[in-house]
């Protein structure tokens, strides 16, 4: 079965987000106020700079913000750039090595792109990840 994924680039990391969780993709401009919350559709929702989390320092330029959802909850993710949409079969994903490092909180599978030269990580829905939601409630 094919599922659609938004392919996102966060500096050197290529990520896939299940499109069923994605509510909207908005541009981040110099006027966009991205602190711990962003204004979206007349409400304040928590914001996470995903690029900063992955690379460990403030990114040069996040161009897009992806609004993801889980039930009635929403979360804004700052990412480098939304590149494309891909349809990928479930069977084409592979397990990631269990290295006892926090990346397993964020990714659950890997997909080999460009004839296997590049590994693209499938994101978990961060609204379902305790390690992430605990930080939001602090």
């Amino acid at each position, binding site marked *: 079965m094919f599922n659609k994924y938004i392919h996102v680039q966060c500096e050197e990391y290529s990520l896939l987000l299940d499109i069923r969780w994605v509510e909207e993709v908005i541009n981040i401009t110099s006027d966009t106020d991205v602190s711990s919350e962003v204004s979206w559709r007349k409400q304040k929702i928590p914001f996470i700079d995903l690029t900063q989390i992955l690379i460990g320092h403030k990114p040069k330029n996040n161009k897009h913000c992806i609004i993801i959802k889980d039930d009635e909850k929403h979360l804004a993710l700052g990412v480098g750039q939304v590149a494309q*949409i891909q349809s990928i079969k479930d069977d084409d994903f592979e397990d990631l090595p269990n290295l006892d490092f926090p990346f397993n909180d964020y990714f659950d599978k890997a997909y080999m792109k460009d004839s296997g030269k590049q*590994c693209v990580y499938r994101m978990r829905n961060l609204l379902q990840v305790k390690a992430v939601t605990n930080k939001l409630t602090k």
Partner: protein
Amino acid sequence: MKKSSDKPIELILFSVLDRVFAIDQEYLVEVLESTVASQLPFVPDYVDGLINVNGHILPQVDLAALVFGSDYIRPLGSKFHTVLIVCVEGVNLAFRVGQVQESATIVEADIQKNKPARKSKKNAKSDKDQVDEYSIGKFKHNENQVILLDADALKDVIKANETVGGKQGFLGKVAEQKHDEEKFQGYLIVKVSDNEYAFALNDVYEINVLDTIYPQPRAPVHIAGVSLIREEPRLILNLSELVGEQTNAASAGSVVMIQSGDIFCGLLISKLCGLEMISEHQIKVDKDKGLKTILRGDTLTKVIDINELFTDKVLKLIKPYMPDQKAMDEKIIIKQVEMVRFEMNGSAYGLNVKKIHRVVSDKTIEPLLSKHGCIMGTMELEGRVIPVINLYEQLGYPAEDAVFREYIVVNDGENDWGLAINETDQIIKIDENKIDAVNDKDMKYVSAFSSYNGGLLTILNVDAICKDNRHTATV
């Protein structure tokens, strides 16, 4: 390794920095040329990332960083161009090393084993020399001291994931099927009259909401007016007219600023609807008609090609009104130009004082027997009779209810003329470099634009105004 002391051990030797290491060939699966690993976040420095080896996804470890610590200094000229694929208890690992050298055969007795020491914490950051932790001991080979790696210890660097169904390790396979790939493009959705249109985001310079758009006298319907944007006069066009919709006059609104060649202007829209990411499958191109549309839901929205908006016909109409984009060069002396400022129909106008002879009031205007251009009559000045131009009418404003109190006497190089206005405001000084001249070729009655006190100042071309009426003057 558990072998009897005299059983030969077949080893493969390789370099790591300036040291020679060995590993039991029993564990060696493959030797490869080094490739770029896909980076993994949140891992220690000695983990390069993930690589694809014959369709299998493996973590790659920098052996030098693992055993010598992440602060190791790489000697000049050292290279890491070999990857050893090692399999321990069914777990495949990739180790990036220097160069594979040769094979060697030893026995256990040849090995000078390490002294037992407390193992450091698993997966701890490798910030100091941990050669002993990952090796069994050393042996001599061809005058070199070789470090024998402990394969069991290496296995503990990275744990395998055993999934349901007995799948062991982290083996992956390369997808062979081709997948549909779509790319997103950003489109700005706007409303023009009652219909929605789209701009490719790359074509949009910026979007502004304007409080005031100053209409221009006798301007074609394509031109909504001129507005000040960050104190710079910008030409504002009616996008409705350019796309064939009904145009309603507007003195304010949202504009999409675009740049096409040397055209930089604003396109007045009815409403800004939003921004959407459109996949390439939603884009339809009719090459015969030169039409590009995007499918949004069950609606087709036309995409505006800004290069096709400005046909030769349109350019001819708008260029005379296009302010110059003056570069702000380094100023040494700022020249100022004196202007007489006055208002007409709610807009501010200026006349260069050099063109003005004097300003008079309370004059009796003798009407002409028959109509000539915009000449409303004549007046007596210093013993001479000069024609008086109704400036309201000349600039296309309704003149029926105009009240004329003052007359600006100008000279066009040949004759004196009176320009009938309501009243002058004041004499102002404007920096010369803040005056944006319009295209000189097809100029009508406007020679330049500027800003004064936060408002637009339209500077009139006296010569053009007088010239249009010259052939009718019979005094």
